[in-house]
């Protein structure tokens, strides 16, 4: 028994550098966000005169915390409207590409028509196109069609940009479903529509979920596409644009910037933590986005 304890002790000691390295790295990675969170709940005059780490002198003195900054950015600085805009942009810009990619993936995987493989390869090849390649022509077209500064214009753009990855991920998953199952349903007289809605979609939920997490995080966190197609219209601007403008106009008001940044981060962090499993699965299945 003492022998056993001694072995455990030596392994533990030899492991110390590993524990130390992990603690240091985890701390380094967490400190930036922690500083943001703490600063966002401190009163303005405190944030601007002392470092956020000074709260640790009396961590349980709750009078030094307040939610005032959040109230200010949400109303006076327009982040409340931006939050609504971000939701209005991100939810349809996630649902529409899922639906379109799922139907296309089903057709590419299980329906017979000439040129099926070539079409799939061509779609995968579109993953190489950097979004920058598309901005100037589309921006001009949007100008003529009056789509600049509209939610619908942005939904369609995000859908177009998200489809290659979506079709790639979903076609690979749907194509690997058991053939017997789908053929049996067809023999029983199920129409393609019934096979798709009652069989393919429920069975493909893991793949759909991982694409959904990707697309939602991508759209919610996007700045460039929104800047290009929404221009400077503040009524439709999502959180990323509004926060960027806040950095420009209130660059030194850290109490507002930190609260604003935290608001933009909450929903993606929740989605991410809740659906991390699907996100990782999607990553492992090949995350390549143009």
């Amino acid at each position: 028994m003492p022998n056993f304890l001694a072995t455990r002790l030596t392994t533990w000691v030899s492991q110390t550098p590993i524990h130390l390295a992990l603690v240091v790295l985890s701390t380094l990675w967490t400190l930036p966000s922690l500083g943001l969170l703490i600063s966002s709940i401190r009163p303005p005059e405190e944030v601007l005169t002392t470092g956020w780490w000074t709260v640790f002198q009396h961590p349980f003195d709750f009078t030094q915390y307040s939610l005032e900054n959040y109230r200010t950015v949400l109303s006076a600085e327009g982040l409340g409207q931006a939050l609504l805009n971000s939701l209005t942009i991100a939810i349809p810009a996630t649902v529409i590409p899922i639906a379109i990619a799922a139907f296309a993936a089903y057709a590419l995987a299980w329906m017979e028509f000439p040129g099926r493989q070539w079409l799939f390869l061509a779609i995968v090849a579109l993953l190489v196109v950097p979004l920058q390649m598309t901005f100037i022509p589309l921006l001009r077209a949007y100008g003529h069609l009056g789509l600049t500064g509209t939610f619908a214009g942005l939904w369609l753009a995000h859908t177009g940009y998200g489809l290659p990855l979506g079709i790639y991920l979903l076609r690979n998953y749907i194509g690997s479903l058991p053939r017997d199952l789908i053929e049996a349903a067809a023999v029983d007289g199920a129409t393609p529509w019934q096979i798709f809605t009652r069989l393919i979609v429920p069975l493909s939920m893991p793949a759909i979920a991982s694409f959904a997490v990707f697309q939602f995080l991508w759209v919610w966190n996007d700045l460039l596409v929104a800047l290009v197609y929404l221009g400077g219209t503040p009524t439709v601007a999502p959180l990323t644009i509004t926060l960027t403008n806040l950095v420009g106009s209130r660059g030194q008001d850290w109490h507002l910037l930190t609260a604003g940044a935290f608001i933009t981060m909450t929903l993606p962090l929740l989605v991410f933590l809740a659906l991390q499993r699907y996100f990782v699965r999607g990553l492992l299945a090949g995350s390549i986005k143009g």
Partner: protein
Amino acid sequence: MTHIFGRGLVAALAIGLGCGGVFALFYGANGLVERFAPGNSKNRLLPWVYLTPALLLLAVYLVLPTLVTIYISCFDARSQAFVGLTNYLTVFTDKTMGEAFRNNLLWLVGVTGGSVSLGLLIAVLADRVRYEPVPKTLIFLPMAISFVGASVIWKFIYAFRPAGTAQIGLLNAVVTSLGFEPVGWLVERSINNLALIAIMIWLQTGFCMVLLSAAVKGIPQEIIEAARLDGASEGQIFWRITLPLIRSTILVVSTTTILLVLKVFDIVYVMTAGNQGTEVLASRMFKEMFSFRHYGRGSAIAVLLLLAVIPIMVLNIREFRRPTPLR
């Protein structure tokens, strides 16, 4: 109060319309074909009913614009007069563009090297402890944060106050407490690019770690045990066994990171707007488009990006497709 309620209602309506619209589209088109297409043509038509929306959007949003951009990169600012390769010549000789090329290269080396090696280090270390999920989750978490959010977080870390006043930025607080002068991290030309690159490493390491960790766990335990029995040290095991066996994953992770970094825009745009010598290709293109309204030059930069992406993407897909015995 009714004001907020009204705006929420408008948002909900828009969301419902957008999401409902796409389902109505497929349902309607499918119904039409099922009802009106004569018997045997139905099976030939249906695939196209399901594919057309996707193909149409891909053509309109990716294929056609790409061709048009290549075409107008040979025209002047307003796309009226043909100028041949002049835009490319300007892009390659312009002083700021030279700076953008250099910075992009620095980003590529810095971010790829930094996040892949740190990701590997954490993956290997965390594999040996029992509380593995904790450090991995903490390091993975920044992946959910937008570049804009991350920029604000780090701008606060880099905050600068003149010497003698209390520093509220973490980094300058550390620097001054060690007895040095505070540093303007985002203005000093020798370090501001590195300060921006650090943000991207912070965001990207989690991604590298997750993929590399999966690869490390895929190595059969027998191989490691056998090497250990033969008296190999932990260092030898890492360099001679682990590293060669996860080579393919390292390549995929590196190329994916390179693809991301080539097009980096948000961080530069929010932090410095490309001033003080921090310009990169994507931020330069944005300026050509919106500040100078020079569509020819903007398109030329986009084409250069495409040309840089293609070989890396081909490498990535080919490596990803290769069946490895360990996966």
